[in-house]
């Protein structure tokens, strides 16, 4: 059962990834990418990484919603009403991407992966948090607040007034 879902998500991820380049509309391209990310998130959930999978879906959908604003603003054919080909160096891209895929696939199949020792911990989320941040958790939280304040201040300093006059 899990294998079926995994395969379905894999097919969905790859095909919506291809759709990003095939569709004409920028809005559709962005959300095809979002679908691809969601499929990857579901696969992470299937691998018992529930927290990571759901966070992936959360962050990626939010990012796609922000990205679509920029896609519509900056790209040439946002609605896709005039079909135009936007590929450059098509042959070169195919060669590079297929080559990279071949190398990575061969590697993932031939590498001697380590054997699991012991059991997965009972609370995976807690174990994940401790593995990533360990003893530095307080520092990380403080740093993230400082980063956020820096971003906001940089924005405020760089534009003396906002978009609207009132």
């Amino acid at each position, binding site marked *: 059962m899990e294998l079926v879902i995994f395969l379905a998500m894999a097919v969905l991820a790859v095909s919506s990834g291809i759709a990003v380049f095939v*569709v004409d509309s920028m809005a559709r391209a962005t959300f095809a990418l979002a679908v691809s990310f969601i499929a990857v998130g579901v696969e992470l959930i299937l691998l018992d990484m529930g927290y990571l999978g759901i966070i992936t879906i959360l962050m990626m959908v939010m990012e796609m919603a922000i990205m679509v604003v920029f896609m519509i603003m900056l790209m040439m054919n946002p609605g896709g009403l005039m079909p*135009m080909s936007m590929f450059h160096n098509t042959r070169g891209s195919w060669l590079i991407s297929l080559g990279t895929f071949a190398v990575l696939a061969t590697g993932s199949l031939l590498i001697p992966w380590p054997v699991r020792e012991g059991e997965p911990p009972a609370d995976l989320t807690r174990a994940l948090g401790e593995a990533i941040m360990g003893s530095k958790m307080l520092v990380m939280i403080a740093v993230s607040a400082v980063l956020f304040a820096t971003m906001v201040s940089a924005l405020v300093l760089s534009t003396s007034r906002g978009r609207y006059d009132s």
Partner: protein
Amino acid sequence: MGMKRTLANWAASRPHILMVDAPGFTDVRIAVEQWCLRTGAVLVWTPADADVLVLGGSVEGVLAAAAEELWREMPGPRARIQLDSADKVAERLDATRRELAAAKLEIRGDEWVSGAGHNALASHDGHDGHDMTGPKAEHSGHDMHAGHDMSAMSMPAGLDMAERADDRDRLKLDAVPFSLGPVLPGWSTGLVIDIVLQGDVIQSAAARPGAAASSDFWALHPTAARFDCASRLLTVLGWQNAAASAAVVRDHHLETSEVAGPIERASRLHRQVERSRLVRAQLTGLAVVDGADARDRLLRWLTSDDDQLPFASSINAGLAAIQGLELSSARLALASLPVDLESATMSHHAGHHG
């Protein structure tokens, strides 16, 4: 079938009315609003949500074209009525409601139903301006060009691409021509203001000389006029209870000339609006004319003691005020500088600014 009958009766119990009132027929509009209040019918903002199109008075020119477009945009079982005067409004609207219950779904082939191509109309209409916004993906089959051909610009669905222009910060952004009016919620029906939008910021605005008629309806009821304008501004602010309250006070002032009754309600409304921090945040400093901003004008309208009419002398003050403003601020500014399309002066001045 009994089921369909019941569904139709239920659907017609709460008709959604789209009101297109020509200038000079304010009494018809007020009569329709009072009927809606009594029977629970809803006055709606958009033809997609409407069942009944009510034409108040002699609708001509731009307004007539707009009314036809709105009629075409209404889906589903719909009914239409022309009201030329304010008497027997209630009976006629009740009859229209029965007609709506019996109305059948027509099979229509226009683009509002099928979404196929559409020729850009000569007249700007309804609330959808000139169709140019970020063009969308779906192409009806026969226009497909695969490949790199950009020069053969077959306009999809008859829509043009927007041109670019400089904005306030010298960025080149798409400039989309749009028009406000002639039919909008909280708007003097019949007024059309053509604007150029970059995003949601107005770059230039011009009023189109439109239908205007002479009538002294508001001149005879200045206090009611003030509360009508206040009700409109409160509608645009989104404060539905306050707008309804102001409308009730207006109706009372129209029926009797003594001010005894609604004083309590009016002063309560005035207190609420004065204390509201959200109103203060949105209206302070907006559309300053003669030293008074939008909030000052609104508070002045809500006091019921003097005889002053609330209208601006011409549309030029409004056009100057909305230059460079964002769309919702512009709507608030225009609502706080209402023009009386019925006064004789309006029909001669058509302002142009920007």
